[in-house]
């Protein structure tokens, strides 16, 4: 498995406050890599920085995708190169249907992608992507949207949050499918999901304090001294 994502020395500050510092991270092709950490550790910020979101441009370090330096590329150029992000709280749109949304940039049939996340296409394709959808429905549609893109690297920010527990298995199947077609960087608070990953990294105070076998990283995370991230690293 060759390296798909290589992040070196990534640093990010927002409003003068350091958010990420010295991040070194690699994700190989076909790998499911889990990011663990308490709320505020910097997991979502790292995903946004990798994706190239406005306001999350790193002040230090570089990001290579399949050997290409994408650090200076804007969001849409990174998307065109195969990076995709399933947002923790996906946006809603007035006047845009689920079918419209999945078709934007999509390489796969929207109906097929909806089925894979457990939603009946006949019930959802024509629905507006607005506040009439529940949080769980919107999250599943977001995952279907990532599937439709057939990304090389899928960044999934808590994809199972808000999903009923009976449907968790479907979401896990989606994660496996995305791993097969490229690689997945998964942010999760679910221990079972984390345990099934190939590798894991633990973030605390904007730094990676532990990385390697998931079992070891989970154990380190559970034994952490801090209950929330206050900028001081723990158990590093």
């Amino acid at each position, binding site marked *: 498995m060759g390296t798909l994502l290589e992040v070196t020395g990534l640093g990010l500050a927002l409003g003068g406050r350091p958010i990420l510092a010295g991040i070194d991270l690699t994700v190989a092709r076909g790998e499911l890599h889990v990011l663990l950490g308490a709320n505020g550790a910097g997991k979502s910020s790292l995903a946004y920085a990798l994706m190239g979101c406005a306001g999350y441009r790193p002040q230090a370090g570089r990001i290579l995708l399949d050997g290409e330096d994408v650090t200076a590329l804007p969001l*849409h150029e990174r998307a065109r190169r195969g990076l995709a992000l399933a947002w923790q709280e996906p946006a809603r749109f007035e006047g*845009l249907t689920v079918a419209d949304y999945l078709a934007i940039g999509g390489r796969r049939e929207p109906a097929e992608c909806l089925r894979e996340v457990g939603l009946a296409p006949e019930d959802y394709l024509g629905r507006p992507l607005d506040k009439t959808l529940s949080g769980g429905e919107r999250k599943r549609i977001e995952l279907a949207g990532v599937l439709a893109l057939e990304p090389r690297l899928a960044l999934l920010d808590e994809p199972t949050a808000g999903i009923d527990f009976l449907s968790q298995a479907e979401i896990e199947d989606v994660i496996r499918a995305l791993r097969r077609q490229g690689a997945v960087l998964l942010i999760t608070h679910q221990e079972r999901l984390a345990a099934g990953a190939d590798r894991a990294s633990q973030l605390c105070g904007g730094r990676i304090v532990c990385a390697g076998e998931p079992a070891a990283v989970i154990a380190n995370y559970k034994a952490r001294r801090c209950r929330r991230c206050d900028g001081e690293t723990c158990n590093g």
Partner: protein
Amino acid sequence: MADLATLYDAFRSLGEDPGTILAPDTAHIVAYGHQLVSQQSVPGVRIEAHADEQGVHARVVVAAGWLVLQPVHLCFGLFERFGVQNVDLDLVMEAGAAATFWSHCLFMFPDMARHAMDARIVLEDGARLSYNEVHYHGLSGGIEVLPRARVQVGEGAHYRADFSLTQGRVGRLDVDYEVEVGRAATAELTSKIYGHAADAIDLRERVHLNGEDARGLVKTRVAVEDQARASVTGATYGNAAGARGHVDCLEIVRGEATASAVPEVKVSHPQAKVTHEAAIGSVDERQIEALMARGLDPDAAVERIILGMLG
């Protein structure tokens, strides 16, 4: 001189099928400027129209109890660079009648022209009317559009009006609609407008909920860019027990454009309730990023969001 072939060509250029609009089983009025080109009544829909130097005068009556399956088409336009079109319309939906109207307003060529509509619309008890007005404008911005409507909605009747001006330059638009809603009747007014360059948009819509349990919704979606200007007044007055109304205004501003919204709600009966929401601003950054994350560049993402809102 314009004829039906001119209209056919215009519709085809817009991707529409004129054959369905002017089919033999479809009631219609076609007028260019102050020239009445065609009128057709069908069973259940009586059209009496004539034109003179002052304008086009039309009376349309949908007979009591008739459910009109084919939409009624009103086609107005100017095909010269300069001109004036005044339209004087009386539309009566008799008790229990139901119909859908499409008003096609074609102003693709004028450099300096004016279209003024003065409409009186009456829905008798139990009638249902869906009135869709779609404007197709050219790129010169030299058109002035002044629609006026006074609408009475009788007991248990339902009035729905959709106004759309999202293709080409708006020019100058000054809309003034006033709707009186009777007992257990409903009125829904939706306007979608996209202004560019130096377009000027003034939109005033007032709904009076005068009957018990009357319902009203005024929904406005406006986007302006460049140096365009928009002023929107959506007003709803709750005057009877059980009356419920809502004013919903969303305006998106780009470039040097400016927009204002005045949602006016007033209640004169203790058991009436009227609510409002208004938002003006640029396109939500999160929405833009969500579409950019699917490969759209920033301009395409903003355009997609605006067209979705106006779609």
